[in-house]
């Protein structure tokens, strides 16, 4: 028979004012299995805790129930006290006599009776409690950062500066992401590359950062603290250990007309190329799709040019494995092309651009060296129209959400244009101006007031070309719907910020969730913005939703701190409230029938398949096993299992039934 100790707290008068605590202690003391029951003024005080410790020893208690406040308040306190007295802490439970009883009921017979019931429930539960050990998992103190935009750069540097190793994987030949493509940045108009390049270099030189460019994640296995990442190093065709980055090969490559990704299609590049002059690493790769040699088997001019013999024709993709303890996802976003909107030109008019293309035009390192010129004929546009929300906030053809950054960059574009073309006229068609941020509204007002950008509230219905002009048919809704027609020289669409292509597949590889637009989903929209619901995988930057640089950097540092916190211990200690699949002696092994309903139910992919093999190594059965590193203890699997083979420690079926039955069985 159990020997349970029960301790009823007065909480000063908080409980005893409405509950007859002496009667509770008295009646519970008479229950089967209760070896000791007392009441006391402040159980959580030192003397209160001492009562418990002494009773554990004196009566050899095998269970403790404290009838006091909410377990959310003092459960750790009393469990610690029990542990100090040598009792497994998970044999201690609390009955909530304060928040759930004395504070919500008047002083009465019923209130005391309810209090007795609440304590009884816990006594019955504790009888079924089993000693549990907290779970310890080792932590590999090395982080994997996927994506080398400003988010990935910031997160890598922050983690590396805490002294931990970082592996940074970037898909493109250089890190930098979208920020490296920007001209000047709102709200301060500082040059994007001037502030970014030093950080890119720092990444390359940091002793704690291992950089893999032109690489992608192949697969990820394992769980928090213990991931195994397979990384595909795409063949660069250039040996980076010998290449000096002199660029001679690039000068000589005869394939020169490939649209440059970095210049958003406005400039060209060669087949062997460095995406932009400040690239990190500043060494070329060969684009095999466009290279003459890979296409037709002849050329090799680059090889002849290279003084150090760095070209490697037969290099193949390589797959390496890295063990890491945490992952930061920082794969950023993408912008929709102009062909998104048929009425704005089907991508057929050369002078209808995306915002990103305009950034390249305005950038000193861009195809026009910072002069705003029309792609069609190189003329300087005298009239320019910006169309906000081009694709965003359009459930019919685009995406329903607001892309958040485009109001700001449109204001910036109009401003940059006015600064560069003094006699130019710029018009912005907008629906709302969303400029929430430090100095953002002021920035937009400056565009309107000081730089005389013409803001017209209304959407544009159509853009078409006539006599070398782009006719923009819009409306001024503030004038009761007056139609506005502008003959523009250039039209810039603030196209939607969308999830990066491939983000869905990447999310599936990592077992993180994504939203309907394929942006990665945070664990909680307010309180866990950098966590995913897979423990150990964190988010940074625009891969979670469109966002600007300040927010991206803040989020990246947040993710880095989460990683550092995780790495601050050698082992992870977790509450043992996790699921377990029962194990029986052979030949039964388990009541689990291997239906894996639990697997479909589990939101954390914590269910694994365990093969039970005979002595000869033949497969007897496959049953479920819970990966305790991944299990969060939600218990969903328990409700799904029809054979009742999986149960959740601390809330087992047995325990819960005992609670319920104690209430009803009289």
């Amino acid at each position: 028979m159990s020997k349970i100790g029960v301790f009823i707290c007065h909480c000063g008068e908080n409980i005893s004012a409405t509950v007859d605590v002496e009667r509770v202690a008295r009646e519970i003391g008479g229950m089967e299995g209760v070896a000791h029951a007392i009441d006391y003024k402040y159980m959580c005080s030192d003397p209160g805790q001492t009562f418990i410790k002494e009773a554990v020893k004196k009566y050899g208690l095998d269970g403790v129930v404290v009838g006091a406040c909410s377990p959310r308040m003092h459960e750790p306190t009393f469990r610690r006290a029990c542990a100090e007295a040598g009792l497994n802490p998970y044999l201690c439970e609390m009955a909530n006599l304060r928040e759930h009883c004395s504070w919500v009921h008047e002083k009465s017979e019923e209130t005391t009776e309810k209090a007795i019931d609440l304590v009884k429930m816990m006594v019955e539960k504790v009888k079924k409690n089993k000693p549990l050990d907290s779970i310890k998992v080792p932590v590999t103190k090395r982080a994997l950062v996927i994506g080398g935009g400003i988010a990935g750069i910031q997160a890598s540097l922050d983690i590396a500066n805490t002294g931990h190793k970082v592996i940074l994987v970037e898909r493109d030949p250089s890190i930098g992401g979208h920020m490296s493509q920007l001209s000047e940045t709102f709200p301060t108009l500082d040059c994007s590359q001037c502030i970014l390049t030093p950080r890119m270099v720092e990444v390359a030189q940091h002793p704690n950062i291992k950089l893999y460019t032109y690489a992608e994640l192949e697969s990820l296995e394992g769980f928090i603290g213990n991931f195994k990442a397979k990384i595909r190093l795409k063949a660069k065709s250039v040996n980076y250990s010998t290449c000096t980055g002199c660029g001679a090969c690039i000068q000589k490559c005869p394939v020169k007309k490939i649209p440059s990704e970095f210049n958003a299609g406005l400039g060209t590049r060669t087949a062997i190329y460095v995406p932009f002059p400040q690239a990190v690493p500043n060494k070329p790769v060969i684009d095999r799709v466009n290279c003459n040699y890979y296409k037709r088997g002849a050329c090799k001019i680059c090889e002849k040019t290279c003084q150090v013999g760095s070209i490697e024709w037969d290099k193949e993709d390589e797959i390496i494995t890295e063990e890491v303890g945490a992952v930061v996802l920082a794969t950023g976003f993408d912008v929709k092309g102009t062909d998104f909107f048929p009425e704005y030109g089907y991508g057929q008019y050369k002078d209808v651009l995306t915002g990103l293309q305009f950034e390249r035009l305005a950038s000193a390192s861009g195809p026009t060296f910072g002069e705003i010129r029309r792609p069609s004929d190189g003329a300087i546009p005298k009239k320019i129209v910006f169309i906000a929300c081009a694709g965003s906030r359009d459930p019919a053809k685009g995406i329903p959400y607001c892309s958040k950054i485009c109001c700001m960059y449109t204001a910036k574009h109009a401003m940059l244009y006015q600064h560069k073309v003094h006699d130019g006229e710029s018009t912005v068609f907008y629906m709302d101006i969303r400029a929430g941020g430090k100095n953002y509204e002021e920035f937009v007002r400056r565009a309107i007031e000081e730089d005389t950008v013409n803001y017209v509230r209304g959407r544009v219905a159509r853009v078409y070309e006539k006599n070398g002009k782009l006719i923009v048919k819009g409306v001024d809704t503030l004038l009761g719907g007056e139609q506005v027609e502008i003959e523009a020289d250039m039209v810039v669409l603030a196209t939607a910020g969308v999830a990066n292509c491939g983000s869905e597949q990447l999310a599936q590889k990592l077992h993180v969730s994504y939203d309907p637009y394929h942006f990665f989903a945070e664990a909680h929209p307010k309180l866990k913005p950098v966590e995913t619901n897979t423990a150990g995988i964190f988010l940074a930057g625009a891969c979670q939703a469109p966002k600007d640089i300040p927010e991206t950097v803040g989020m990246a540092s947040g993710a880095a701190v989460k990683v550092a916190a995780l790495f601050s211990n050698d082992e992870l200690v977790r509450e043992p409230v996790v699921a377990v699949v029962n194990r029986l002696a052979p030949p039964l092994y388990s009541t689990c029938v291997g239906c894996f309903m639990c697997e479909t139910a589990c939101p954390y992919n914590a269910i694994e398949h365990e093969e039970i093999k005979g002595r000869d190594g033949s497969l007897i059965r496959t049953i479920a096993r819970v990966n305790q590193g991944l299990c969060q203890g939600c218990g969903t699997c328990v409700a799904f299992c029809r054979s009742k083979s999986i149960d959740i420690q601390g809330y087992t079926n047995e325990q819960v039934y005992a609670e319920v039955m104690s209430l009803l069985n009289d």
Partner: protein
Amino acid sequence: MRCYQCGKCTAGCVLASDMNYPPSYLMRLLQTGTRQNMDKVLASNSIWLCLNCENCLGRCPMEIDIPKMMDYLRTQAIKENKLHPDSKPIIAFHRSFLDSVRNTGRLYEIGLVLSYKFRTFNFLQDLAIAPSMYLKGKLHLLPEKIKDRRSMKRIFAQTIENAKTVNK
């Protein structure tokens, strides 16, 4: 109604500038849900001038079916007898057209034009082109009639002539 007043419909509507209220404005009036604004809508020429060309619907980010609403509003305006003067020739034309279909099963253009002229007392209109139409073989002097004209009578009787049927 989901309209968020972006104005794209108005920006592309070919007749917006001829309307008392351009389409987006009309949507706003309806959105208020007040009787007063509904009256404004019904008494406007907008609902009659709308050509059902569907430019607006094709471009509306919220896929608001303005042409369909126009259909409804026109029926409502007839029912409440709140007709903008611009509606007169338009309704007259439609009625004359349907008369022809009702009687012959097809469109009898001379009949249509004559009947329209009686309805609008606009005898001079189109005098200029009718003779050349005739000369170019584009006008039949006698109506073409379908055989089963009773089916036409029945269809008209059960739909437009049946007081209970209204546009939805």
